[in-house]
Structures are given as structure tokens and as C-alpha cells.
């Protein structure tokens, strides 16, 4: 059994400070963007992008470049190509995403088998290495959080209306195609930056779980988005403390904490619904 380490001694370590800050920023960003992604039914998009990003990482290793800097254009390209394919092929989006995601994952794993130095780091790529997050990555995460907050405040009305009803949004002057695309590109960039910390397999959990937990208990939109970001950030910090204290992998620890938060929200929602009439039961 691993000896638990005291929180104070962990906080004194510089890499731990970076990791906690990384967990907080990644979690808050995931919660913030996830709140809209879940309503727009883009949960699978973040999952597919996460898996496809492995190909971007392998490309970076083969080219000898910083994976984070390669992943950003890779993710944006992925978002644009998939959006165009969904629009033009008229195939169901989930089927199309599955094709892109499984094929890029397959190519990435094949390419990885040729890269000697990356063989040992496959697990880190899959499950993340938040303890190894750099100041550059932290700076990018902070910048992205600011951009997301600014864009979210600017496009709040547009995102809600286009999610509810495209015709209604157009009738009120919302530039629907532009806002659809901008959101997907922003989501892609966040996923690309967060991959290092969270890992390919778990990134969608960061986007989807806090948002779903918040949706279960929220009674208005601003509260929903704020709570989703807060739950994401808390899950990130608590998960990392748990990970460091018990020497467990960081990405999975965060996702397990987020799952516990989700289950708590589910219990609260089920409790508050008892005795209430079913939706739409009141007279018209």
C-alpha cells in the first residue's frame, strides 16, 4: 500500500503547483466549453478529436517538433474537415466521426510502432501526464480560458438560439454557420492543448461529465455554464491531489472525481424530482 503524502508537502513542489494549476485550467475550460458542446450534441466530436489527436502527436514526434504546437493546427484542420464532411456528405455525423476517429487512431498506432523513443510514452499519450505540464502549456491554457470567456460572453445569445432552433436564430439575425464553426474550432483547440494533461482516451470525459452534472441541477443558463466550469475546475484540482497523494495516474483520477460529482448531481436531481409533476403535465 502506498503511503498517503500530506497536502502541504505536495503543494511545496513546483511541478505539483504547475499540475494543480493545469488541472484547474483544463477542468474549467472543459466544463465551460462542454456546457455548450453537450447541448449542441457535440460530445462525440470531442471524443473523436481526442483519438484523432494521437495522429497529430505521432506526426510531431516524427518531425521532431513540440507536440502541443503541432496539435493546434492539426485539431483546427480536423474540425474544419469534419464539419465540411458532415455538411457535404449528408451522412450521420456520428458515423462519419467514427470513420475519421478509428482510421486516424489506426494510422497513428501503426506510425508509433516505427518511432523508437515514443514506445514507452504510449501510456502517457493515452491517459495524460498532467504532472509534466510545462509553463508554455499553462500559458496557452490561461490564454484559451480568456478567449473562451470572451467568445462565450459575446456569442451567448447566438449559441443558445442556434442550439434551440436554427430558423429562429436566423430570424433574429444570428450568423448561424459562422458561430457553429467558431465554436467547433475553439473546442478543437482546447482539446488539442488539454490532450497532454488529460490523455487521448479521457479528454471527452473532461468535456462531457461536468456539463452533464451541471445540467441535472441547473435552473437557468448562466448558472448552468458557471456550475459546469466550477465542477470541471474542482474535479481537476481534487483529482490531482488524489493522484499525487496516492501515486495514481492523474488523468483517470480526475475523471473518477468528476464521475463522483456527476453521481452526486444525479442523486440530487432524482431527489428534487420526487413529487413533482412530469414535464408538460400542467394544462396548456
Amino acid at each position, binding site marked *: 500500500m502506498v503511503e498517503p503524502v500530506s497536502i502541504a508537502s505536495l503543494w511545496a513542489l513546483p511541478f505539483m503547483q504547475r499540475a494543480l494549476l493545469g488541472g484547474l485550467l483544463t477542468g474549467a475550460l472543459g466544463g465551460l466549453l462542454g456546457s455548450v458542446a453537450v447541448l449542441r450534441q457535440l460530445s462525440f466530436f470531442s471524443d473523436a478529436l481526442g483519438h484523432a489527436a494521437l495522429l497529430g502527436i505521432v506526426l510531431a514526434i516524427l518531425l521532431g517538433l513540440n507536440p502541443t504546437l503541432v496539435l493546434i493546427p492539426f485539431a483546427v484542420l480536423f474540425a474544419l474537415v469534419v464539419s465540411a464532411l458532415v455538411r457535404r456528405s449528408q451522412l450521420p455525423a456520428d458515423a462519419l466521426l467514427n470513420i475519421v476517429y478509428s482510421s486516424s487512431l489506426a494510422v497513428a498506432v501503426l506510425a508509433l510502432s516505427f518511432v523508437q523513443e515514443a514506445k514507452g510514452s504510449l501510456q502517457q499519450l493515452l491517459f495524460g501526464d498532467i504532472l509534466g505540464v510545462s509553463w508554455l502549456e499553462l500559458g496557452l491554457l490561461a490564454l484559451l480560458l480568456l478567449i473562451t470567456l470572451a467568445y462565450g460572453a459575446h456569442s451567448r445569445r447566438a449559441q*443558445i438560439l442556434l442550439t434551440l432552433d436554427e430558423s429562429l436564430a436566423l430570424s433574429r439575425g444570428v450568423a448561424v454557420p459562422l458561430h457553429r464553426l467558431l465554436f467547433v474550432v475553439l473546442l478543437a483547440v482546447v482539446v488539442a492543448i488539454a490532450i497532454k494533461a488529460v490523455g487521448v482516451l479521457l479528454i471527452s470525459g473532461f468535456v462531457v461529465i461536468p456539463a452533464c452534472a451541471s445540467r441535472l441541477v441547473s435552473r437557468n*443558463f448562466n448558472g448552468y455554464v458557471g456550475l459546469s466550469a466550477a465542477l470541471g475546475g474542482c474535479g481537476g484540482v481534487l483529482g490531482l491531489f488524489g493522484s499525487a497523494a496516492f501515486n495514481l495516474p492523474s488523468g483517470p483520477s480526475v475523471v473518477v472525481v468528476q464521475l463522483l460529482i456527476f453521481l452526486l448531481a444525479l442523486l440530487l436531481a432524482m431527489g428534487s424530482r420526487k413529487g413533482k409533476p412530469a414535464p408538460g403535465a400542467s394544462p*396548456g
Partner: protein
Amino acid sequence: MAEMILTVEDLTVRREGVNAVEEVSFSLAPQTDTALVGPNGAGKSSLVKALLGLIPHQGGSVQLLGQRLGPQGQLPPAVRAQVAYMPQSFAVPPRFPLSVAEFVALGWDGPRRPRGAVAEALAKVTASALAERLLSELSGGEIQRVLLAFCLVRPRRLLVLDEAQAGLDAQGAERFYLLLQELRRREGLTILQVSHDLEMVRRSCDRVLCLNRRLRCSGPPAHALSPAQLELVYGKGYVPYHHHHH
């Protein structure tokens, strides 16, 4: 004669390679209530979307509140602000985290929303009690009233409804029409509504446009909804649809 709210001349709209609407011409006088009727697939929704600039049109012209729409449907913001649209089959996903008051506020498309505008809009449609409810918890009739509040949160001149009464029972549809008539009088609205409920159209609208890709007939309900005209629009053997009023 007062300036027309809407003037449409020889409008043609293509959807997926075929003409959904062909060479349609009509105009709407201020403060009138006009129904657009026709069978499924007649091009009613395409026509109203093209009028509002939501989809492009391929021929003819649309003049809305004195401004001509561009071919891609571009509408100047000042004109758009005076027009409201209630879409067909507006459905809110379960647990969509948006309160009624938040939703109605989104209907305001000006620089600054005056304090009290949302409460006033909800009061107009007798939905003040719903302000804090989730949009997804409302019944069909409540949703329609709240959509009306969304549309009328700021003063409008033209209200376009695409089958607003669909999904409502007979009593709900009746209440909705009465509310619409009251708002029309009080707000000085011009209304254009797509409807399948010909009985209601007969009782409440001033004028009917019968569409089946082309405009087949138009005029007051007594003329446009006569059996001979209905057969012209809906084809032989047409049985008019109407709610069973209890």
C-alpha cells in the same frame, strides 16, 4: 392608401433543385391577419422563410417594410428588428437549462434591453407565472405563449407564424388564436400565419392565400375557402381538416 407591410412579386424559391415556390405575388396591408394554406409540401414554409430572408430566393422580389431583400435574403437589421417569426415544431430538449425569462430576453435584438421588458412581454401573453420555470418543463400551449413573448419582447410590426397551433389540442388552439387576435389589436400587428386549421382560419383571418407551389387563389375566407377553391388547391376529394371542438 397606407404603405404595404410586405410586397412580394413573382417570387420563386428553389429547394434541393426543384421549385418549391413559383412566381408568387401578393401583398400584406398593415394590421391585417392573413392565412397561408395549402397541402403538405405546397411550399408554405419555404415561402415564409424566403420572405424573412432565412433562405435565398431565385426569382422575383420581396419588399419588407419598404426595404428590398437581397438575393441571398440579406435583411437590414433595422427592418429585422420590426419582424418576428415563430418557427414550425419548436421543440426543447429535456433538461435544457434555460429559464423562460432568459429565453424571452434573447428575443431582444437591440443594443440595450430596458428593465422590465421581459416581465412586460410575459404579462402580455399571460405567462408571468412561468418566468422562473425551465423552458423544457412547459406544455405545448405554454411553449407557444412563451414563444409569442419572445417574438413580442420589443415592438414589432409583422409577425409570421409557421403552423403555430400544430400540436395543440382544440381548446389550446382556440385560446392561442384568441390571444393572437387580442395582441394584434393591442399592438397593431400585421400577421401572416401558415395554418392547416381551416375552420379557425375561416373564423379569425381577414384574408387567405392558397398555395400549392403557385398561388392558386386568394381573398377573404368566404371566397378562398369555398369547396370549389379548396378542390383547386388540395385536389379532388379533399376533406377539410378541422379540430373536433368540444
